[in-house]
């Protein structure tokens, strides 16, 4: 009888404590689902000069991975982890090129190529149109199709049925 009372008391205590434990568990459920692989593809191993995912043996890369694992375990989002890496290793740790010096070429060259390519296409279209215009005769002159239909109309008028 005494044992049953003790068990009942323990269950009641558990029921009281359970709601208090629930909020503590909630943040874990909200933890961003970041993995080492997510971050590895977007950051560099600064010593190796390659993306971290490709740096397999460099000791510095292994340290960087350990730091990322710690931050993942700490429930940090990918952006937060990248910010921490920038604070530790500088902007060069980001896989995207910087926006100054030679790195700027990574943005300027495609833009320039697009501009030059677009210009070349426009120029080509213009040239093609001019060439076609020359083939079809001077502007304003009736086209070959129009002359033929005029001739046809004249013939039809001559042979009134």
């Amino acid at each position, binding site marked *: 009888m005494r044992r049953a009372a003790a068990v009942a008391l323990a269950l009641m205590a558990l029921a009281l404590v359970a709601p208090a434990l629930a909020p503590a568990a909630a943040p874990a459920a909200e933890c961003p689902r970041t993995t080492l692989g997510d971050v590895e593809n977007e950051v560099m191993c*600064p*010593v190796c000069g390659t993306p971290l995912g490709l740096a397999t043996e460099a*000791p*510095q890369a*292994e*340290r*960087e991975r*350990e*730091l990322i694992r710690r931050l993942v375990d700490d429930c940090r989002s990918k952006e937060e982890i990248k910010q921490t890496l920038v*604070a*530790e*290793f*500088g*902007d*060069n740790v980001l896989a995207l090129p910087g926006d100054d*010096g*030679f790195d700027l*070429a990574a943005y300027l*060259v495609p833009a320039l*190529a697009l501009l*030059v390519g677009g210009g*070349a296409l426009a*120029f*080509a279209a213009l040239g093609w149109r001019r060439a076609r215009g020359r083939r079809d005769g001077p502007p304003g002159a009736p086209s070959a199709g129009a002359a033929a239909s005029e001739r046809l109309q004249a013939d039809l008028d001559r042979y009134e049925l």
Partner: protein
Amino acid sequence: MHRSRSPFVVAAVTGVLALLALLAYGLVQSGPDDGIDTALARGELPVAPGFALERLNGEGRGSLADYRGKVVVLNFWGSWCTPCRDESPLLQRWHERISARGGTVLGVDEIDVTSDARAFVRELGLTYPMLKDTDESLRPDYGITGYPETFVVDRRGRITALRRGPVDERFMREEVLPLVEERL
């Protein structure tokens, strides 16, 4: 007979040449600067490039200028670098040896996790001043190609010797000791 070239050919050739020029410029820019090595080989003493960096222990900033008038053994290292670990006890011994005679070892931690670097310093009992170069900003100025690298700076702020790789007792005795013993 003069035959005019198609504007497309001209544009394509110009584009390819421009890309090649850009590639060449990038290669030249990213290559290590061996200006200090060349100057030393010619018998010149180049002025050590100045800098101001965060202290590794987080207590403000420190600069090379703080040690003007002293002989500075400027050592670039990282806690992830095994040869750096191997040479650190030697640097610590020499720091203790020269610090009372107007000399110091000055460590610059490169591309490192701060907590790892601090643990390294604690573990090896290093007492010489340490700065942290977060983004290798000194790499181009000093032409650093790997770690560790050590530059000996005289009391006038000029580089008198360098070692690209770990230092040893002989280097310290031949390159540092005479500067410390030199009277101004």
